[in-house]
């Protein structure tokens, strides 16, 4: 009785094993829009463009790696900063494609947008051969991003409250200068020092430059770095408020900065500084 039941499950397991093998075959491919990439073609271009930093084994130990900071990505770990998917999940092919295309600002990784779409899609397929996780796991489901709420001073101020409450300032600093109390001690998952983003530089974010991409950065977290995911603790509507506030920390001409500057000139003295909570009774 019990045996037959287990036998049936064993049959299902066998079918699953077959499926697993099929999965292994599909891990040699990538799919971005209408394009399909294959790892064999990708390898040729990997050796042409990527090997100097990421190394022949994809472990980030290329000949240039010792001279580069931040270090090149180790593809064998299959942990990626820029994803549309929740923390702890594999990125989609589109995410990898976007990362290759966009490059990583302020690092040695240039935008590879000059390569043809086919070349980039093939590279994505090849990058996925470096870790067995691409065979055993599936990419996460992309985090849903609702339509952006209007940029208002209420939104920016609420975002500022979140910046305080979520303790973003502990790393990014009260003014967003990347100088919070924990900033100096941060290390990545390989125990290498890593600085938090300094908003006052105004440079593009590593994972993009649009408000949507900024939304995604703190909702998905940047895996492999100290930047955690806030998806469980910030509601989607509130997340836009945080986006709007973060924009005011950058020295850029943005709608958020305009709204903020106009408000601050008249209400600046109402602002409580960001930082450690003041004990009750301790005046400002």
């Amino acid at each position, binding site marked *: 009785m019990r045996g037959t039941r287990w036998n049936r499950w064993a049959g299902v397991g066998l079918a699953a094993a077959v499926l697993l093998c099929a999965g292994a075959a599909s891990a040699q491919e990538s799919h971005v829009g209408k394009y399909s990439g294959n790892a064999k*073609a990708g390898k*040729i271009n990997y*050796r*042409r*463009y990527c*090997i*100097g*930093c990421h190394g022949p084994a994809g472990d980030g130990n290329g*000949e*240039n790696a010792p*001279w*580069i900071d931040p270090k090149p990505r180790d593809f064998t770990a299959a942990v990626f900063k820029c994803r549309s998917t929740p923390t702890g999940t594999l990125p989609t092919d589109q995410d990898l494609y976007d990362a290759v295309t966009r*490059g*990583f*600002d*302020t*690092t*040695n*990784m*240039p*935008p*590879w*947008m*000059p*390569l*043809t*779409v*086919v*070349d980039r899609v093939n590279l994505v397929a090849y990058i996925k051969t470096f870790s067995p996780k691409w065979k055993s796991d599936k990419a996460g489901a992309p985090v849903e991003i609702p339509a952006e709420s209007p940029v208002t001073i209420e939104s920016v101020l609420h975002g500022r409250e979140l910046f305080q409450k979520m303790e973003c300032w502990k790393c990014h600093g009260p003014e967003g200068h990347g100088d919070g109390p924990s900033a100096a001690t941060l290390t990545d998952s390989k125990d290498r020092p890593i600085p938090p983003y300094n908003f006052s530089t105004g*440079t*593009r974010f590593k994972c993009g430059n649009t408000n949507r991409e900024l939304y995604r950065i703190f909702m998905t977290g940047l895996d492999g770095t100290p930047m955690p995911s806030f998806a469980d603790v910030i509601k989607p509507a509130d997340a836009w408020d945080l986006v709007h506030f973060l924009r005011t920390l950058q020295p850029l001409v943005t709608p958020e900065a305009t709204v903020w500057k106009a408000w601050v000139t008249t209400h600046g003295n109402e602002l409580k500084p960001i930082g450690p909570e003041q004990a009750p009774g301790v005046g400002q």
Partner: protein
Amino acid sequence: MHFSTLRSPGTPIGLLVLNRNGIAWGLIAIALLAITSQPAQAIPAFARKYGLPCSACHEAWPKLNNFGQVFKDNGYQLENDRDSPIFQNNAYFPITIRMTPQWHLEHNQRQQVDGPLGTSIEQNITTSGFDLSGIDIWTAGTLYKNISFQVLPSADSTGAFHFESAWVRFDNLFGSSWLNLKFGKHELDTPISEKRFLFLTANGGFFQLYHFTPVGGPGLSSLNQFGGIGDNQLGVELMGHSKNSYTRYAVSVLSSNSGNVGLPTNQSYDLYLNGSQAFEAGRLGLQRVGAFAYVGRSPTYFLTDGGAAIPGTGRGDRSFYRVGAYGIWYLGKFDFSTLYMHGLDNAFLATNTPANTPLPLGSRSPTWNGGFIETHFTVNPQFVLVNRYEAIRVSRQAFTVLPGTTTTVPSDFGDIDAFSVGYRWYPIMFSRAGLAWHQEYSYVRSRKTSLVNNLDQGNSSLLMGFDFDF
């Protein structure tokens, strides 16, 4: 380029005595040009700055791929907010040298040599041996974010230096990649760069079409100052490109002195235009089509002082133009560069006639058509096979009959066929320096140009050497 070194600024160009020796000089000039020019610009200084292997920017160095093209179009910037020199180690200086110690053989057919009793006869001349190329000492990079520069002192193999290029460029004006302004001596935005191609020999190391000026007839040279679109020119260039450089344009306004310093000719300006569009063809790769034009004027005589021409006083400007279209086609590892060009020189220039004197009877403005197809088979980033066939056909000779004689100018006089084949092997593919073993054979045949008997001349080169840069 080195064409011009034959005419120092003080040379009375307009009064230059032109005879059979003119052609000989011309041929020697072409040979000199090829030997001393450094057609290649590959810059390990950039590899060192950015930590990318040569193969990232070069299909096979010095030939650029589209990634390298975008890097160049951006003003030597990757645009990762780390381009400004402030991010470099203070000790970093972007300097590159390139040289090619080599063994080569030159075979020149039907050369004029002295015969018995003061006659001239023709004889084939062959020479071979170990030799040096010229040297490029190249510095280029960014002075600041969106301000780039290049200075290239270049020497021939004897060590005589000149400035091959020197310019400053303001990149991404008004935040737009469509507006970049370059000021100084620069390579024209040629359809297929002669500075970055994969041929080095005396006969094959340049595009015939990029330097061709027709001769009026046997023993007659051209007055055209313009050395060719292959020569670096002095002026300003406005160029723009889409972010991935699929769409590109360039407009140069140039002093019409063929890149020579010291204002040697006159005050007029030339115009060069180039535009192209690339598109993706699936797995085949990137295809590009484009068109270009050079329109200029050149003086036909100079003011003189005691019979000597006064530099910068060129007079009697006459016009010339070069127009063409091209395509660069990829079939996976194969790629073809194809180019068609049509050219015209004013009759005064072609017949060597100062514009204040009447044209010889029966003279016309010569025209010609030409084209080439260059093939590369990039086996991998470390091995590339190259080949090129080039043809120039004079469609209208300056004269049908040489003035004062009954000598008919044959319709194919001065036509050129050129063929090159070779390979480059890069034993190391590295992000600090480059080394290539280069082997090439080139053959050029020019119709009816031998000086004594007006017969075809075939010249060939064989070269093998180590091409290295650091």
